[in-house]
């Protein structure tokens, strides 16, 4: 651009040069018209002055004992040569110099900053840590000292004394021995409005889950800490959500060191963590874009990895379950056929050495069962609502809320979504991310889904949809009585073998929780089915209403399901039963479910007949199950 007429054509430029055109442009922008000649002269002079200032500024850099020339250095050089200094570029970091493709234009990126946002942000940036000197014997008699020097102290010291004290007290209380103190600390963490500056440190502490994976108690406490932070209305979690989620996911998915000992009830921890995950997601999911997508992806990854231990799979299932039935439908359901084979193999192995693994397998089985059950139910409900125009609020939600408030977590339950999460899938669809297995997902019709699921679970699925007498009325058989040889209702599964072995768990259903003051330390039984259920043929409205009257506490109002499709309803199921568990106190529940008429013949069940053993345990089923997984779920 800088043309030089004359005999010597310079092959290379020795310096960056300001072209004449730039000078003219700059002049024009201030309203001055320059002739070519003047512009050329000015350009040359500007180049020279810039070089001179740069050379002068380098000595300030040298004397500051730096290698990098800073804006400060340049400004000093300008100031000492009585030139106006450049304002506004005092940043420590290098300023990115970007090209603009269209116009051969280069510019320094200078983003606009929203001052309001900056001012109101509660995550105060880290202060500068204090300058200090540390001594280290680097070489002793000429030999290097390998003793670690430790890390550079960070800005923790810059917190005010009070905050620091608070931080220490709180962490000590939560991780300490005293349950009362812990409770107080958690409560305060949940409501304190002045701890924004400490958030990074708490998040950091929580990320310590990875180092205490052997200690269920500590993990639990850290999860409670997460819960308190999440519930604190004064905290803006911002991008820390990601860190919290990763800590929680760790508890859900990782084969914790604590799970080596079968006596450790890591299942509860996973359940709790899953619930927490869903809570974080539903309350703070909007803070991090694509979070839903990422969570699903990692859950799916675990689920599809056969090398992972069963407890990880269990975590993935409960995680999906906690994220809502849509997540189950999209990730778990398509995976089921593939997964089933592995699970089957575990469950069919009767060797003694396999006992423990098999018990884990039952856990997974139970978790899947609960998940798909709700999937079916919610899907049916959504169909109904769609048919009814979604008029009534979802009654189940309120019920769920009641149930949740009773549980030990004290978390408010996530509202059961009938729609997709607002950000998750929608955002990832917008982003157009490729390679997501559930992206090409096409909705499966409810009957088809039911049929397929039935092919896996057989009656253990069916048993949830009670066919028996109305809930409150009938006295179920004795706890240990096996229900083998029960006839399969022809209507639902005409091709089934007659001699299907029914899961035993149904036999135990009506143990009153009050009766069992079972010891806390009792090992978990293989069963995770706290539900009592009977399958009953759809008997129409009168029957349902009847049932309703009998129930003392009508939790799930029975709805009539006019079929979305034309034609009379063929079936209507009612799920009902009594919730078991320490806290549920035998609360009854019941729900109705309307599958589309299974007119089509069901496919031959390749798996179902192989599943006679679910819940069959040598010990009485009335055993207290420590894992009250299903209690956390709004049915």
């Amino acid at each position, binding site marked *: 651009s800088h043309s*030089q007429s004359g005999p010597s054509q310079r092959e290379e430029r020795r310096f960056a040069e300001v072209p004449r055109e730039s000078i003219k442009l700059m002049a024009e922008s201030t309203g001055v018209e320059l002739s070519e000649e003047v512009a050329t002269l000015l350009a040359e002079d500007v180049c020279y002055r810039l*070089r001179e200032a740069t050379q002068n500024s380098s000595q300030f850099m040298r004397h500051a*004992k730096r290698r990098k020339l800073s804006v400060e250095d340049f400004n000093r050089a300008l100031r000492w040569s009585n030139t106006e200094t450049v304002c506004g570029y005092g940043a420590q970091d290098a300023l990115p110099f970007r090209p603009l493709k269209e116009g051969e234009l280069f510019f320094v990126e200078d983003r606009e900053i929203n001052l309001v946002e900056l001012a109101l942000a509660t995550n105060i940036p880290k202060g500068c*840590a204090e300058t200090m000197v540390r*001594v*280290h014997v*680097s070489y002793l008699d000429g030999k290097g000292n390998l003793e670690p*020097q430790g890390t550079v102290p960070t800005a923790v010291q810059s917190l005010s004394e009070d905050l620091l004290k608070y931080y220490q007290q709180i962490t000590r209380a939560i991780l300490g021995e005293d349950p009362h103190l812990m409770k107080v600390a958690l409560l305060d963490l949940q409501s304190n409005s002045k701890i924004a500056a400490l958030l990074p440190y708490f998040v950091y502490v929580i990320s310590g889950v990875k180092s205490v994976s052997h200690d269920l108690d500590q993990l639990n406490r850290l999860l409670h800490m997460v819960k308190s932070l999440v519930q604190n209305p004064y905290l803006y979690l911002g991008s820390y959500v990601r860190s919290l989620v990763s800590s929680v996911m760790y508890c859900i998915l990782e084969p914790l060191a604590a799970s080596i000992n079968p006596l450790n009830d890591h299942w509860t921890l996973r359940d709790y963590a899953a619930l927490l995950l869903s809570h974080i997601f539903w309350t703070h999911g909007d803070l991090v874009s694509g979070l839903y997508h990422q969570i699903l992806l990692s859950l799916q990854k675990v689920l599809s990895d056969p090398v992972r231990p069963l407890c990880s799979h269990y975590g993935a299932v409960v995680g999906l379950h906690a994220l809502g039935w849509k997540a189950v439908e999209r990730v778990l359901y398509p995976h089921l056929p593939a997964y089933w084979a592995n699970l089957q193999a575990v469950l069919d192995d009767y060797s003694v050495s396999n006992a423990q693994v098999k018990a884990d397998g039952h856990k997974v089985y139970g978790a899947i069962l609960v998940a798909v059950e709700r999937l079916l139910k919610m899907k049916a409900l959504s169909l109904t609502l769609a048919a009814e125009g979604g008029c009534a609020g979802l009654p189940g939600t309120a019920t769920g809320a009641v149930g949740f408030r009773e549980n030990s977590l004290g978390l408010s339950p996530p509202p059961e979504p009938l729609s997709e999460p607002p950000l998750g899938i929608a955002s990832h669809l917008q982003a157009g991310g490729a390679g997501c297995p559930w992206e090409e997902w096409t909705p499966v019709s409810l009957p088809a889904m039911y049929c397929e699921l039935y092919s896996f679970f057989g009656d253990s699925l069916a048993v949830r949809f009670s066919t028996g007498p109305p809930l409150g009325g009938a006295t179920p058989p004795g706890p240990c009585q096996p229900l083998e040889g029960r006839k399969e209702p022809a209507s639902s599964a005409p091709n089934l073998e007659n001699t299907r072995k029914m899961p035993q768990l149904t036999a135990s259903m009506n143990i009153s929780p009050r009766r069992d003051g079972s010891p806390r330390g009792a090992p978990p039984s293989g069963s995770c089915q706290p539900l009592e259920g009977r399958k009953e043929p759809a008997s129409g409205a009168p029957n349902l209403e009847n049932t309703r009257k009998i129930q003392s506490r009508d939790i799930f109002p029975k709805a009539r399901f006019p079929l979305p499709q034309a034609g009379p309803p063929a079936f209507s199921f009612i799920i009902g039963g009594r919730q078991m568990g320490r806290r549920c106190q035998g609360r009854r529940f019941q729900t109705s479910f309307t599958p589309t008429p299974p007119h089509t013949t069901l496919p031959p069940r390749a798996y179902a007949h192989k599943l006679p053993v679910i819940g069959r345990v040598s010990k009485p089923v009335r055993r207290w199950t420590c894992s009250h997984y299903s209690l956390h779920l709004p049915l």
Partner: protein
Amino acid sequence: MAAVQDGPMELDAEKEAKPEILSDGTSNLSGNTASGTLSSSPLTAAPAGGAPKMEDQQTLIAVLQFLKRNKLSESVEILRREAGLGEHQEGSQATDGSGGGKGDGDGGDANSLLSRVSITSAAAPQSMPVKSDCIINIFRCDLPFMFMLSEDQPDVSVVLSAYSQQGDPPLYQVYYSGLKNFIESVLDCHRAELSQLFYPLFVHMYLELVYNNHETEAKAFFDKFSGDQECYYQDDLHILCGLTKKEHLKGNEVLLDFRTSRFVLHISRDSYQLLKRHLQERHNNQIWNIIQEHLYIDIFDGMPRSKSQIDSMSGSLAGEAKREVNKAKVFYGLLKEPEIEVPLDDEDDEAENEEGKPKKKKTKKDSLGSKSKKQDPNAPQQNRIPLPELKDSDKLDKIMYMKESTKRIRLGPENLPSICFYTFLNAFQGLTAVDFTDDSSLLAGGFADSTVRVWSVTPKKLRKVKSAGELNVIEKESDDVLERIMDEKTASESKILHGHSGPVYGVSFSPDRNYLLSSSEDGTVRLWSLQTFTCLVGYKGHNYPVWDTHFSPFGYYFVSGGHDRVARLWATDHYQPLRIFAGHLADVTCTRFHPNSNYVATGSTDRTVRLWDVLNANCVRILTGHKGPIHSLAFSPNGKFLASGSTDGRVLLWDIGHGLMIGELKGHTDTIYALKFSRDGEILASGSMDNTVRLWDSMKAFDEVETDDFTATTGHIHLPDNSQELLLGMYHSKSTPVTHLHFTRRNLLLAAGAYNSQ
């Protein structure tokens, strides 16, 4: 404790800041004659103490010539009358200055030179009404200023020097090529010597072209010949090639230096004759004139030097040092230690007795004491520079020092020191300077955010003295009064000193640990009390960034050097400098006191080290050989040697007595910011930006040098390339450039620097 008696020089004129003011002043004067033609030289100075009459006369003659040329006959008459000069004096005096070292400079040149000056000034005929006496006045008032700058012979032609039109611009290439061809054709032994001419000739011819507005020719000339220059001139060439306009010449300090100083070359008589004959045969007046005008050829008898000999000495901004400059006698010996009764430390002895060791201590101490009692023949007189009397506390400290030194580890190639690294963490604001007290109890850091921070390295915390009110109620007769005056409430590990308004580039503790000096970009040096942790004095004088400051080993005096190209000697109780050491052609980057406090060494961006006599502010040594700005200096403990480190990563060792380079230590890959000799001088430690500390066998380096009479007189040394043998150890820090090094009294090496997290 008396202040230094005023030397034979006047200091009043020093209130004005830089020597550059000089040029400003004169260019103001000449503003209506011809801009840029009058560039005054800081080198035009009179010999110290001598009558400035001679110079006055010469200046007058030059002015007269100038006036004559401009047909200002009336002014000439007036001036001549006032000055009482005869007409005959003009011609004979004019070349006096240039005749000195050149052997045979012909007198006609000065006239032609002056005539050239007048050609350019003739371009501004409106300069007539300049009053001659006013010119004289300005020269007069400048003179006291100048006459300290250097003892170089004055040269009026340089005062009025300008690059004037001479010869056809395109012919410059022909001239230069001609000389180049000639030099390439001469015998090998002469070629290396004559090749020295290339660089200064190249620069001056280029500048002449630029000055006369032959921009195109200048560029062509540069492109053609810049590749031939020695690689160590790259930095200068880089500046040069950016300069293509006459207007740019004016403000460029580096070139101002180049023009106003004479580039010094050492050439053997044989080579010089060869050159002279060649130039005369070819009538190559252009080059001959430049040689006469801008070069100083120091001719010696004897063997021509080899290329490596030349390379080791060249590289500075203005060539090598003239030989006679380094002939002055330097009293490099140490002063006699005051006699102090060393009380036997009972506790120590008991402890050693308990361990069953024989009680040899006493004899050891005696031998140590007697060593310093001997008068060093090379030492200056004890009272050559008035030194403060020892206080009781100083005596106590001396005793402590002696005790410590008995426990000192003897270092050597087989016994290297342990290194303790003091890492500054979270120094976001930029660590710019570090110093330790001699007893290694305190550490000071200067930062780019204008603060100075002091840390206590020992468990003893830093405490302030109580306020005046509180001090009143203290029992003054109590034994522990010194303890009682301290305010326990203020005890802390570190203290921050606020006061500067720019980055702090230099810090220095006083030997008695009561004071701390800091020099800053804001142009001041500040004295801080370490009793009250407040600023006591701000010494103003540099007016430009002060790059370094250093306390005298006896306290009281300190030296500072800065961007104004001068170093200043101060006494803590004087707000004005006692001496000004001027002569460097560029910034004074580092300053160090000689152990006997009689001399000051300065390193500069002009790539020379100079040694100055505190007594008379004379420059007694100019040491050339560095190829980059010098950023660190260290005297050996015996005062005989000096080490200097520069941005080129090399450490050079100098024999002060002979003014000779005696060693070159290559190895560092970046600027050396720290140099320190061990307490007994056996080991030299160097610390650099390249994150390493290197230890060198200084004993071996000093011993291997043959300082026979011949080398001493000619100054031609053969440097053995033995850096690898002398390197005893190289120690890496992870990511911490080494900013400062310090040997404790027991020879433990302390290094300091700021951790760089990137």
